[in-house]
């Protein structure tokens, strides 16, 4: 199945891409995707990902904490957003 990823901030710089599509196995969970991202983009990306406090992970616009956390199931066509702290007023 295909999962679309959107990067922002430092994660985008380290990934050198704004958005990309990953092919995941059926039954994959968010934790699998995060592990996959770390393998794809290397140590610096992995470190940044683990260091960002208050990182918002959205799956189709909903926070992952309300979808099962890191165990949230993914399905074909999902969009995952990795959004560091950002503000509006």
């Amino acid at each position, binding site marked *: 199945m295909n999962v679309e990823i959107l990067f*922002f901030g430092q994660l985008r710089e380290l990934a050198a891409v704004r958005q990309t599509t990953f092919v995941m196995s059926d039954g994959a969970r968010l934790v699998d995707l995060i592990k996959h991202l770390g393998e794809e983009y290397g140590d610096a990306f992995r470190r940044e990902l683990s260091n960002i406090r208050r990182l918002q992970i959205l799956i189709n*616009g909903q926070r992952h904490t309300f979808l099962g956390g890191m165990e949230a199931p993914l399905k074909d066509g999902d969009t995952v957003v990795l959004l560091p702290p950002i*503000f509006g007023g």
Partner: protein
Amino acid sequence: MKFAGFDAIIVKGIADTPAFLWVHDGQYELRDATYLRGLDCDDTHTLIREELSDPNIRVACIGPAGERGVKYAGIFSDRRACGRGGGGTVMGSKNLKAIAIRGHQRLELADREAFAAAVKEQIKGYRTNREFATFSESGTQNSEFTNVLGMFPTKNFREGVLPNWEQLERTEYNKLRVRKTRCYSCMIHCGSITKMGTGNYAGAWSEGPEYETIWAFTGPVALADIGLTIAADKLCDDLGLDTISTGSAIGFAYELYERGLITKKDTGGLELTYGNNEPVMQLIRQIAYRQGLGDILAEGTREAARRIGHGAEQYAIQVKGLELPAYDPRGAKSHGLNLMTSNIGADHNTGYAPQEIFGAPFPREVDRFAVEGKGELTKWNQDLTALFETGILCSFAPSMGMLSEEVYGRLLSAATGVADFSDPAYLWQVGERIFNLERMFNVREGFGIKDDVFPKRLTEEPMPGGPSAGQVFEAEPLLTDYYQARGWDVKTGIPTKAKLNELGLGLTIGK
């Protein structure tokens, strides 16, 4: 103002001819402002400082919009705006062009040592806050956080994602930054001077634009044009307009044009079609000077719709006459509930819900689409805002957790000598009391449950697509839950006698 020896200024009556108020070191006088009539805010600042021979005078003034009674005229001090709610309209109605202040007095503090110690705690709270660096760098200059939530109002709140919104991302504004700016004595420096180098708006600059303004001139016309956000921001600042209501009024006109409720005859030949933002700068000027279509848009969308008729009312996206800001309530229920119940109309700053918009974990994490518990959360956000604003404090720091009620209370207590302020429970009661007192002011003026209403678009039309697809704003259960949390009558939306007496507001009963 405090350095000049005053805590607040109440202006009564109407000047016979244009005037400005000159306040300095315990004294005040009305001075002739005839020569300032018609000038924009920039020139007004400059000429008042020249007349009084002091470049350090602080000025709060209105522009041509306020002089002409545009219902959403703001008050402008240098490049900062008191934008919402028509404060500039009120000044204009009094023939008051500006208030100029200069103060040299020393501030008296009840306990200087305790105050200094609390300030140290405040600084520590800012510096160690995990959001400080990001907010200090970019402030609110971005559009991504609401687009990824599918609640960036587009085409007059018909859609929740703006095409090509990536052109309005933080990184794009960072490229245009000339320098950082800040409010008096603030260590965050969240403001920016931004300038276009190339394109249609080459040379245009402004302090900002902030998030709301970025939305105001893109979402309503369905075109992401970073240059226009900067040029329109500056133009509104110069002419003295609230960018949010201005953009919303323009978006309202675009929808009426698409539906044939107004035509080229009404627009003076302007083509108000989505994706065409060329008319925006002209419409801003027309609104400020009350020319052409701008004359009716200057009344605000509620009154403009009433005059236009033919069902235009349903396209006026407002509450209590104040246009909604850059958040579609269908994507965040507590945020929407605040817009619905704010005492000045649809104002996000009265009770912003960072829990829904940014995932803030205090007092708890919430599901932005959920209805349950949103009444209590909205009350929490509104009371928190009121208790901090009573100290004339920026609302960003507390909403990000940089400044706790405990430290804030120590600051207030040390400054005033009122020991009660150091008790957070007392502060919370102050916040609740302020909100209820404002509500009772509105009740006295005839407001109630009939005014806590959204346009049907938000309560009956599911969001058509994007990350908030299918959502509506569930007004009835949300509002009842809110009234219950507030201790108000669920049938009238009026605070109960018991609640008012509990808050020491018995004096408002029966008024």
